[in-house]
């Protein structure tokens, strides 16, 4: 989505993407700030903290991506790893 050519689809043009990022950041801020008006009723205390969902969601994803990356070194193989070299396709 880094195509900046004016002839391409409007959705992939640099200006659009910059706007999408701005809107996204505003939406992110709103969901956290919304907690000031609509308090999150936590079940265990910690999950009711301000911005906990945002913080936890981000960190959980970061952890999962890093764990997946580490597992990748161990588990990733070439895509025809299982292919029988004598098979016809």
């Amino acid at each position, binding site marked *: 989505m880094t195509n900046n050519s004016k002839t391409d689809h409007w*959705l992939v043009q640099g200006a659009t993407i910059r706007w999408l990022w701005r809107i996204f950041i505003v939406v992110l801020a709103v969901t956290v700030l919304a907690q000031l008006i609509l308090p999150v*009723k936590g079940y*265990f205390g910690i999950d009711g903290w301000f911005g906990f969902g945002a913080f*936890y969601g981000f960190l959980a994803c970061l952890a999962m991506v890093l764990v997946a990356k580490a597992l*990748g070194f161990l588990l990733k193989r070439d895509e025809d790893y*299982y292919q029988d070299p004598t*098979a016809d396709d």
Partner: protein
Amino acid sequence: MTDFLPPALILLAGALLTLFTRRHLRTAIILAAPLATLWAIWLVPDGVVATYTFIDYQIEPVEGSALRRLFATIFAIMAFGGGLYAFRQARTAELAAAHAYGAGAIGVCFSGDLITMFVWWELMALFSTLVVWCGGTSASKAAGIRYAIMHLLGGIILKVGIDGIAVQTGSVDIRPMLATDFATWMVLIGVLLNAAAPPVSAWLADAYPEASPTGSVFLSAFTTKTAVLALILLFPGEPVLIGVGLYMVMYGILYALLENDARRILAYSIVNQVGFMVCAIGIGTELALNGAAAHAFAHIIYKALLFMSAGVVVYRVGKSKCTDLGGLFRTMPLTTICGIIGALAISGFPLTSGFTTKTMISQAAANESLVMVYMLLAAASAGVFLHAGIKFPWFVFFQKDSGLRPKDAPWNMAAAMVLFSALCILIGVFPETFYKLLPYSLEYEAYSASKVVFYLQLLLFSGLAFFLLLPLMRRTRTISLDTDWLWRVALYRLVAVTSVQLGAVGARMGRLTDDTLAALKSRAESRFGERLENARAGVFARAWTIGTTALWIAVLLTAYVLFYIIWPSEM
């Protein structure tokens, strides 16, 4: 006897008729059979409808309850939606096999006893293998064989358990139990195998993506969700299931993150979603079981929808690897939008079906004060958005411009996708109506402000994480090893090495035998003479003189008499 038709038989008959009809009549049967089945499903009353006696056991081929009707309903809807999606593109054999497969699933739904359940269970294994084979490639043939072996083994384990229970209790009735002894463990393992539980989760991502674009839509729905139903019926509150479910949830996310093939990403996320259900069944409260059932219902719809959108891409482009795809939204707007709706629903975004069902499971965990479970499920919800919610549509429809400009979906595929998209949103927007179908009537408020804010934060910041971490998720042309490596490679090598060793031993044995035989032959020839007419006669073949013969006979007779006298008489 009963005066009404078991619903599964209607779909099975439809599947059979599909084979022998053509054109419009065939289309009519493909679309009408699931609807007739649906009608019959809602006529099944609560309780056991008919009983027979088989050997010493009571067979109850049709037993109704709200839970059983709920699962049968979604299976029938799936058979209809899948039929609509596939009828112009799929081979007749695949359509017939898929509907027979669906009939097996509906048969399991209404089985009142373990023997009936087992018969339908095996029928599902059989016809789902046929659906995999209808992929038509050599890869699908091989994957189908691996799939069949796995499910036949699972069937044997299940059967051992069922027989054990029958012998121990004298009854094959389906009723809640816990895994306390050998027989119940065997049943649990047999059922969990179909749910793609560890350590054999790999069969799912191995087989489903090798089916045809239409076949994988059917495959995504039936096997794992009948296993979920069987677990609800047989093992509600079995604590082992919480751990198994959490493992499946995380396994699905991590493998999906590593995966390059779009349909395989979706296959891993089936394991992830079924993990939520299995975990809920382990929690076992009424709310948790409602959550598991509701989530299974919603999951079948959005997962089929996701496989449909991926299927359209494979059908149009013939490719399913993220590294080959990208930028398809330009010419496939409808498929993109439907894929995004499915992706939002699986992520449990507010206003989609996933939100109204998955939060029920989290709530059940919170109510039981299972802090770890609740937190891991919340992390997993974020992870689902990461691997299926954004990764799938992003890499298939956006990402880079692959230069591919395929046409959008054919009309019937489009109609099926729109239908399932609408269901995703309807269940998300009007959950109260849907909750009335659930097995337990409970008050559950899906859209509390607190939940909505929490999940929006969780999901949107996962989205932020995705785009910030994109460089770490660059797609590579790779696959990821799984436990199936143990039998696909390690066992294979072991067999190969063993057969070479055995061959060497065999060759040595052969030489030894040859030498021994040759020695014996020459010995025999020296004693009995050679076979040739003019050859020298052997020792025993010579003509002996009468005197020598008489002497030998005298010696033998003397020996005989001596033995007769010496030998103890009591013998």
